[in-house]
Structures are given as structure tokens and as C-alpha cells.
């Protein structure tokens, strides 16, 4: 390549950089105008209509798509491996249906979520409905925080000594009402998917004063079962029995959430209930 003469080089650099400068100054002008005098404009998006996957038995279709929503139990808090029950359900379903594609669509669980907030999310959040509509299996947990996190803002582990059984009893009807709303919404969003609710357990069974809390928990579970029973595609798996005599084996060190083995048992039960 022949070296460019300095005269030509100057022309090239000069012209291109002057043009660049003008372009950039125009950019500054647009940015200042746009930021200092903003105009709100409605944006018309092309609404995307998602098609619900067909219902029916899992063994019939080719794809199993799982969406998980709920609280810290669904998040997998307490499981040192981070899998929680959701990822173990995916793995177990893969074993159960070897030829099929099993996919976790979204795990949208949020630590500390209560049923009123979940209902709000189901009602307003397009992302939630989008992810739920794609699924043919929906797993969820909710209610634990409604019942136990009576003093909001306190971490759950420290609550044991302040837990008040009467308060627990008082919280229950409100919690159940909200759960009924959640279930209704869920059915509206996706009536085809198989929905599994993971029942509550009493994490304080081994503390003498709170053992009778199990009776309230059982009442909760029974009421929830009544709610779910209306919809043939919904069911509940019990977990209370795992955390009574074997509580040390299955509960994590925060004395509230299950550990890996505990989640494994829950996952096994969920998979057993799906067909």
C-alpha cells in the first residue's frame, strides 16, 4: 500500500472528523430536547396472544412445561444445593417420562411472598400470566408467610419465641379468603394445566408449646383442599407428616424451611401426583 500524502491524509481526517462532530452535536441536541422537554406518547404494542397448551395427561403430549410460583418454599430457601423442590421435580419427571422434553419454564417464587401479594401479581402482572399460560404443570406454595410471619419484617427464624397460637388462629380466615382468590385467578389464567399445591407443615412441631399449632395447620390444609377440590385439574400434596418424627432429618438449620432431603421428599410426592 502506498503511503498517503500528508495533504490527502489531512483531508480525510479533517472531513471525516468534522462530519462526526456535526453528527454528534446533532445527537446532543436531540438528547437535550428529548430529556428536557419530554413528551409522553402512548406506545401501541402488538398484543401477543399466547396459545394455551392442551390439557390432558402428561403422558400424552410431547412437552412438559413447568411454571412455579409462590413463596420461599418454591424458591428453594434452605436447600444448600439451591435446587429446591422445583428443580428436583423437573429431574424426577425426566426419569418418569424418559422420551419427553421436560422444561422448567420459570420459577417466579419470591421469598416472603404472602397470598394477597400473589393475588395482586396474578391479577396485574402480565409476566406472571404469560409464564403461567405456557405451562402444563403449575406448582405453587403460599400461605406459610400469612400464617407465620405475623410480625412483618422479622426474619422467620427468630419468630419461634414470639409466635402466638391465638394470633395464628385469627390470621387463618383472612389467609384462606385470599388463597381462594389466588386459586380462582390461577384457574382463569390457565384452566388446562395440572396444578399442584404443596400443603403446609408445622415447622415447630418439636417445640412443646407449639406442637398444637399442627392442628391449625391441618385445618388450613383441609380448607385449602376443599377450595382446590372444585377444580378437577388441581390437587394438593401433603407434607405435614414429613416434619413430625423426622423433622430433624428434613428441616434445614433455619428451623423453618426444608433442607435438600426435605425438598426431595416433597418433589417425589408432587411427581407421584402427576399423570
Amino acid at each position, binding site marked *: 500500500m502506498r503511503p498517503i500524502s500528508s495533504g490527502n491524509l489531512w483531508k480525510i481526517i479533517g472531513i471525516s472528523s468534522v462530519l462526526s*462532530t456535526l453528527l*454528534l452535536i446533532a*445527537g446532543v441536541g436531540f*438528547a437535550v430536547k428529548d430529556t*428536557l422537554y419530554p413528551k409522553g406518547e402512548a406506545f401501541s*404494542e402488538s398484543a401477543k396472544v399466547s396459545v394455551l397448551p392442551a390439557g390432558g395427561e402428561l403422558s400424552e403430549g410431547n412437552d412438559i412445561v413447568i411454571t412455579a410460583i409462590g413463596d420461599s418454599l418454591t424458591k428453594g430457601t434452605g436447600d444448600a444445593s439451591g435446587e429446591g423442590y422445583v428443580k428436583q421435580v423437573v429431574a424426577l419427571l425426566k426419569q418418569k417420562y424418559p422420551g419427553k422434553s421436560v422444561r422448567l419454564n*420459570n420459577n417466579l417464587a419470591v421469598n416472603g411472598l404472602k397470598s394477597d401479594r400473589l393475588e395482586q401479581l396474578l391479577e396485574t402482572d402480565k409476566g406472571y400470566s404469560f409464564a403461567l399460560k*405456557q405451562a402444563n404443570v403449575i406448582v405453587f406454595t403460599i400461605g406459610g408467610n400469612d400464617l407465620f410471619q405475623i410480625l412483618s419484617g422479622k426474619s422467620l427464624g427468630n419468630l419461634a419465641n414470639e409466635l402466638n397460637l391465638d394470633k395464628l388462629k385469627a390470621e387463618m380466615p383472612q389467609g384462606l379468603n385470599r388463597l381462594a382468590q389466588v386459586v380462582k385467578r390461577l384457574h382463569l389464567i390457565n384452566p388446562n394445566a395440572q396444578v399442584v399445591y404443596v400443603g403446609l407443615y408445622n415447622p415447630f412441631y418439636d417445640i412443646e408449646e407449639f406442637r398444637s399449632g399442627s392442628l391449625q395447620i391441618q385445618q388450613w390444609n383441609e380448607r385449602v383442599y376443599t377450595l382446590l377440590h372444585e377444580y378437577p385439574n388441581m390437587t394438593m400434596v401433603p407434607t405435614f407428616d414429613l416434619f413430625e418424627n423426622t423433622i430433624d432429618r428434613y428441616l434445614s438449620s433455619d428451623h423453618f424451611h426444608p433442607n435438600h432431603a426435605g425438598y426431595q421428599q416433597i418433589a417425589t410426592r408432587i411427581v407421584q401426583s402427576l399423570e
Partner: protein
Amino acid sequence: MKALVRLLPLIQNETLKIWKKKRFLVIVLVLLILIPIFTYAQYRIKETNEMNFKDWRNQLVQQISEYQNTLSSDRIPDEWKRSQRIAVQQLQYYLDHDVNPNSPDGVTFTRSFLSNAVTLFFPLLILALASDLVSGERTSGTIKMLLTRPVCRWKILFSKLVALSLYVSLTVVVSAVLCYLISGAVFGYKGWELPVFTGFVIKGSAVESGFVHAIPQWHYLLMEAGLIWVSAMTVALLALMVSVLVRSTAASIVTMMAAVISGTLLSNMASSWHSAKFIFSVNLQLTDYLAGSPPPITGMTLGFSLVILVSWGIASLAVSFFVFTKQDILN
């Protein structure tokens, strides 16, 4: 007009001097090495996301959920929560309007690369050009020859200033072009017309969407490049001043780097020290105002930052010209 015609050869001389010193070549080489690295990193992220998520919407929903989990934790400082809350609301806005904020294409990559480069990477490139503009002449002794010519001193400095500005513009544009060309080879050359939302108004930790509007991405990119140019010019003017004041080029680079880096650190931690907003380097991240990210210190706006940057620029110009025309050249 006559004065300008007589200045032109001087400017040409200074422009060619910078070119012959191969400073711009170094900048292009740095870009040619760094952009493929970032492109590859982005490509890996894209691959992981495609493996885990069927649709960008699923990915966005998951991202929002993860932010919400961080928000529910008691161990996160309130400042972080605030910016996360804002991020959640903006992502939610994109989701609600069915617009992908991180579409994998060349233009989107360029947009995010440029906005990440504005506080450190561009200042660094500019320093490579500007730091030895005057001090280099002093180190090599050529300043005596320069000043013994029958030309006013201010004209010499002015021609250096114009040459520097030309290269600053060229650096910003060439970075954007290279970024687009390289990343486009991997992600595709599309994305010019994609909508981008701007105009988010932040009040506390809430985002008001009354002024939000969608603009095509090319327009956004143009505005972004313009704002980066303002930041880069401010750094260039300050570097020119330091180069006039300090004898050695090394000292000049270190001084400017220290100023720029301390600004970045301050933006991250000094949100309670309100006077820090008058420091130029806290104001360099102009592109955040477009994206609607919370400013480093509450109350800062694009107008404020522009005024601060322009003031610093004018002040450093004044100092440069005053010192350069009055200074004794001793060595």
C-alpha cells in the same frame, strides 16, 4: 475569516502530528481487541439464556422475579434496593408493552457497550490522545521550536485544541462503528428500528411513566453518542489543561486517571455527600439520564450535569490559555 485561514495550516500540522504519533492507531487497536472479547462474553450469555428460556419474555420475567427476591432480603442496603426497585419498574414497563429491552442484535450491543464505556473506557482513550499534547512537546524539547515561530502562543494552543476535538469526535464515532461491525457479525446487523423507551421520571424509588415514549434505536444511539461526546470533550479539555500545567506526560496521565477513577468511585458510594455532584467525574455518566437509571446523587438531572461539565470545560480552557500564553519556558 482571514485569521481562520491562517490558523488552518496550524491545525493541519497539529492533526497530522497526533496521527504520526500513532495515538489514534492505538485507540483503534484497543477497540479491535476489546470489542471481540465483549462480543464473545455477550454471545455466551445469549447462549445460556437460549438454553434456559424459551422466550425473551420468560427471561425478563425471571429477571424481575430475581430482583424482587433481592428486594425481599433484609441484608441489602436501602440504596441498592432503591435502584433495584427502579430497575424492576422499568423492566416491567418493557414487559407490559411487549418490547425486548435486550434484544440480541448489533445495534443493541453497541448501545449497551457505549453506555458502559462512558465513565472509564472513553476517558482512558481520550487521555491517550490528550495527555501529552503539550507536556510531550516539553519532554522532547520541541516546544522551544514551536514557540520561537512568529505565531501567537494562543494560536498554537488553539490549533492543538481543535485537532484534539477532531480526534475526540472521531474516537466516539469510530468506536460505535467498529462495535456495530464486529458485534453485528455475531448477532446480526439488525435492530435500527427497534423501540427503546426513554423519559422515565424517577421520584424517590418510584418510576413515573407519564413522559415515557418509545423512540427507534438508531435515534437513541445517536443521542447516546452525542452525550458521550460531551463527556469525552470535558475529559479532553481537562486533560489539555493538566498537560499544560504539568511538565511530565506520566504525571499528566496519572493526575487525570486519578480524577476520573475517583469520580466513578464517588458515584457509587457518595450518595449522601451532596456537594460531590459538582465534581466533573461524577457527572460523566450522561447516558444514564436517557436510560432512566437513577443518578449517582439524588436531584441530578441532565441539564445540571451538562451545565457542570460545560463549566469545568470552560474553566479548564481559561486556565490552559492563561498559563500557556504567560508561562516561561525554562528547560
